[in-house]
């Protein structure tokens, strides 16, 4: 059974004067341990699709099953719980709390999961060490470089062992060198068995994924497997 099962999903925004069809009938299945890039020009509906997949938004119509559960049936608190336990978000703008240390930022999902403080700390420390920031745990975001900030965000996404990691333009605010490092980190995560969904408009970023979904005008325009995904090694 697919981890993510999306069938005929429509998302319509009422902009007052007109109805905007951000998604007009999208059907996709994503299996566990896939590495999928969602591409498309702006206005294609890729952000909306990501919000739906991330349970930040619910479809106007159509079916969305996450791990066999119909997301449309869930209330606000249940959606929050899915976001907390099943999904790890990585944002283009990092979205770290500016006045908190890296460690506390990574602890946040665990706080909302109700994990006791000593365990929280242990797990957050491990997640930060795993992304190579073991020596930066008590730094605040403004004391870290862009790449380090995004690593903190990745650690935060990983810390609660989610079913999928959902990255929205994760390299958009990074220079290309740092971007490559982050993509390398994603490849490693995928190799460790994580499921990754990447939203991007950059071709070379998308090519790190093993499958590329292209959206156009709120519909899936193409769905192809990448024969030779970019890896860290191939770029050296």
């Amino acid at each position, binding site marked *: 059974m697919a981890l993510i099962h999306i069938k005929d999903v429509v998302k319509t925004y009422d902009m007052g004067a007109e109805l905007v069809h951000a998604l007009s009938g999208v059907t996709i299945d994503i299996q566990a341990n896939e590495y999928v890039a969602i591409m498309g020009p702006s206005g294609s509906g890729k952000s909306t699709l990501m919000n739906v997949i991330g349970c930040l938004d619910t479809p106007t119509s159509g079916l969305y099953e996450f791990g066999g559960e119909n997301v449309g049936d869930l209330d606000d608190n249940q959606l*929050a719980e899915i976001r*907390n336990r099943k999904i790890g978000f990585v944002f283009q703008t990092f979205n770290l709390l500016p006045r908190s240390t890296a460690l506390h930022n990574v602890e*946040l999902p665990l706080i909302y999961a109700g994990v006791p403080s000593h365990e929280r700390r242990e797990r957050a420390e491990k997640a930060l060490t795993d992304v190579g920031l073991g020596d930066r745990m008590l730094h605040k975001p403004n004391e870290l470089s862009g790449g380090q900030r995004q690593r903190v965000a990745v650690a935060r996404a990983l810390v609660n062992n989610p079913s999928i990691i959902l990255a929205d333009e994760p390299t958009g605010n990074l220079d290309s060198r740092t971007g490559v490092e982050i993509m390398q980190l994603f490849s490693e995560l995928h190799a460790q068995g994580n499921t990754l969904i990447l939203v991007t408009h950059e071709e070379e970023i998308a090519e790190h994924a093993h499958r590329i979904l292209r959206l156009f005008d709120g519909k899936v325009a193409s769905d192809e497997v990448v024969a030779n995904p970019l890896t860290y090694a191939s770029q050296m």
Partner: protein
Amino acid sequence: MLSLHDYSEGVRIALIAIRANKMRSVLTTLGIVIGVVVVTLMATVIEGLGAALDKSISSLGTDVYYISKWDWFSGEWWKARNRKDITVEQAEELRERLLLAEAVVPVVNSWQRTFKYKNRSVKGNLNGTVPEYEITSGVVPEEGRFFNEYESNAGRPVCIIGHDVADNLFEREDPIGKTIKISGYSYRVIGVFEKEGDFLGTAMFSKDTQAFIPLENFLKLFGTNRSIDIHVKMRDGVDKEDGKAEMIGVFRKIRAVPPGEENDFGINTQDFLKQVFDGVVSTIGVVGFLITSLSLLVGGVGIMNIMFVSVKERTKEIGTRKALGATRSSILFQFLIEAATICMLGGLLGLAISWPLSLIIDEVLPSSMPLWVVILSLSISVAVGLISGIIPAFTAAKMNPVDALRYE
């Protein structure tokens, strides 16, 4: 549903937010600060007044009635004007006929007499009375003694003076045995009363500025053409109402008041002090309550305003927290805690200001800030925070995560 984690995270976020906006937070709490200062000082003053009242009551003696031509604090003083004077003979007769009274003491007084020693002089009330005055007043001289039966009957020129009179006339000298002039007549000081202090302008009841001489002497030198007061103290164990009834019945007969007519004399007790006290306390209470409510209202609106700003500023943070799994109630709680914490700090600041002020009050009016007021004012502060934080917190809690994340 809300866990301890929510709570500690809430406090943590609140402290971080407050630390980041120190000046803003302090200014925001101004209303709360003023409210807390007013409420604590008000309670301190009321407590001080209560203590002063107790002291004044004890100086008046608890179960003592004061028979007088006048009713103290009656609004109908003109009624008393036409009453016949109370005389020393009536007092004598009352003393002989009362069975339930321990002491019946005539007191005749004259206002604004000049007390003089060497080149210093003060003005004060002069009283003529008998040795039993010690029983009805419940006050013994701090130095020296009251006059005795012999000095009283013989009308000896001896006097006991109040504490302020002694201070003013003698400064560092020992007054006992010295001779002072009262309206030109010489008196030997044989005693000084301890200091009583006055309560709310009741200095006329305080012995501090007065002098006491034997009744016989007073009558001889200052005349009798004035109404006297009679102080009546009941025996121990006598029911107050029984004693009062006997006293009124007997005195009506002495004064020949026909049955069915009103008393032509006033029966006063220390209860009037209680009434004065209650009046003052309720005035302070009403004024204080108005100021407090107003400043808390202003403070509450300020907090609400700043919380709206805080929510707006942190829209993206709210979106992020929601994406990471924060529920509506966690977000609601976070902002409520923040509002309550700001107000709590305001309350503490208010206490920090009113504490030294209460020490100043203590100098004038012996008192201390009661603990319950400290607890109450902190609770009120927190309550104001919760009430004024609730709408902004709701706004934050019901934000759509997608819109919040997109907010720049």
